[in-house]
């Protein structure tokens, strides 16, 4: 397994910043009506009252509240790349206040559903989704907000 930080690369290009301290998802915001989209949208606005074609890339809020959560007890099919042996992981649905939207993501290991509670404050972090011979593939994940 590659551990060299130079071998880290995003699992999905252009969907999030690679800022280890304060990572953000990269979405779009309609220049006319303010509707957000993740992943980013261009060309048309989904708001039926808006005919805008102009959108700006925005960093989405990296903090939100836990809308709901679950886990994956069975190994998901491809294109998921599973470690051998497969290790269950938790999944969070987080509500972003400013964007008024819910975004899914894995929850960082070794946290389990027992560590989660609907309504708790959550924050976005970067973590490894999987590794291949070229290095670690980095993805966004959620975790309960770090307590000071």
């Amino acid at each position, binding site marked *: 397994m590659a551990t060299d930080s130079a071998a880290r690369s995003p*699992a*999905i*290009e252009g*969907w999030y910043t690679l800022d280890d301290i304060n990572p953000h998802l990269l979405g779009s915001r*309609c220049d006319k*009506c*303010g*509707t*957000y*989209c*993740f*992943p980013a949208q261009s060309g048309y606005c*989904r*708001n*039926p*009252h*808006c005919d805008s074609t102009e959108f700006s890339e925005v960093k989405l809020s990296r903090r939100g509240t836990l*809308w*709901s*959560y*679950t*886990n*994956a*007890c*069975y190994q*998901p*099919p*491809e*294109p*998921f790349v599973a470690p051998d042996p497969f290790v269950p*992981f938790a*999944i969070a*649905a987080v509500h972003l206040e*400013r*964007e*008024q*939207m*819910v*975004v*899914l*993501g*894995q929850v960082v290991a070794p946290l389990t*559903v027992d560590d989660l*509670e*609907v*309504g708790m404050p959550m924050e976005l972090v970067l973590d490894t*989704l999987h590794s291949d011979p070229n290095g670690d593939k980095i*993805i966004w994940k959620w975790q309960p907000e770090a307590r000071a």
Partner: protein
Amino acid sequence: MSANDIAIIGAGMTQWGKWGRNFAEYGVAAAREALADAGIPWQDITFVSGGATVRCGYPGYVAGATIAQALGWQGAEVNTSYAACASGSQALAAARTKILAGHCDVALVVGADTTPKGFLAPAKGYRPEDPDWVRFYLGITNPTYFALYARRRMALYGDTQEDFAAVKVKNAAIGSQNPRARYTKTFTADDVANSAMVADPLRLMDICATSDGGAALIVASLDYAKKIGKGDAPRVAAISTVTPTFASGTVEMPDIATDSAAAAGIEAINYRSQIPLKAYEEAGIGPEDIDLAEVYDLSTALELDWIEDLKLCEPGQAAHLLRAGDTAVGGKIPVNASGGLACFGEAVPAQALAQVCELTWQLRGEAGPRQVQGANVGITANQGLFGHGSSVIVKR
């Protein structure tokens, strides 16, 4: 009686199972049973409306023409509808429109599918533009979504895993009396609790399987129905196949984020609860008029969501109905008297029609040990991918 009603003069359905035969075989079997039930020859059908088979959520085979050819070309007009889980309802809506416009007197509506082998998974490669690919890459499967909704119920309303198990126990008990069901074994709450956890809080027995099966309806103008002595047949009083209105606040397969309700004048909505509104309006009735409901129990917890979304009770009260026995056959408002997806499994293009078949038999008083006493008005509900969902009201 509305001028916009059509009559259901025949219903047919295969047993659900997992045999891997060509979907057209199931479609033909269901269609022949429906034709025999209607007492009319295949040659009298002038419109065949099929629900497209579904492969990994997307349209699969051209069903209407394939099944029409399998029954023997006889010159009918033909249609295939794709609307994910609502495909059967959309095929029914196409037939209704044709009949009400006076372009057709009697139509066959049919849906059938065979379960593809192996996992439901997207095409391979690196394809981040496909939301279905993205979610599987992140390890987010169908049960993930069902479980998020279930956990949300637990947090908001105090539902428990025991409540969810009770849905399975209820549906298995009544489904064991349905000769067309795939699973006819009864289960106890302990059986459910001892099944493997799939996506917390849902266990294997909380989640429906995928199946092979076919369902068919013969629908006709009221004049045609009267002419053949079936003027009192159950009628389709309403079909809703509406999309959500922006912004949908519930994260839906295959997306990894909801719509944003940040723009001025936009509110987050619950799509499921919007689907039956048009059906109630079109039928000119309200939830208080409903005698029984067939809902899409992809998971046990989702049945409880549907009961509230159909407004059969206030939000958060469905588990109370369940605990009181009100949603069982013999209760105040029986839900899934067929046994539901819990006993059938999903055969996507057939399922919405199978729900209407069950209502037809119930309203004719022919449901045997599953019979809901005094069943005069029934409603169906389902929802699938890409903003497709449907609700059908059948009455007599």
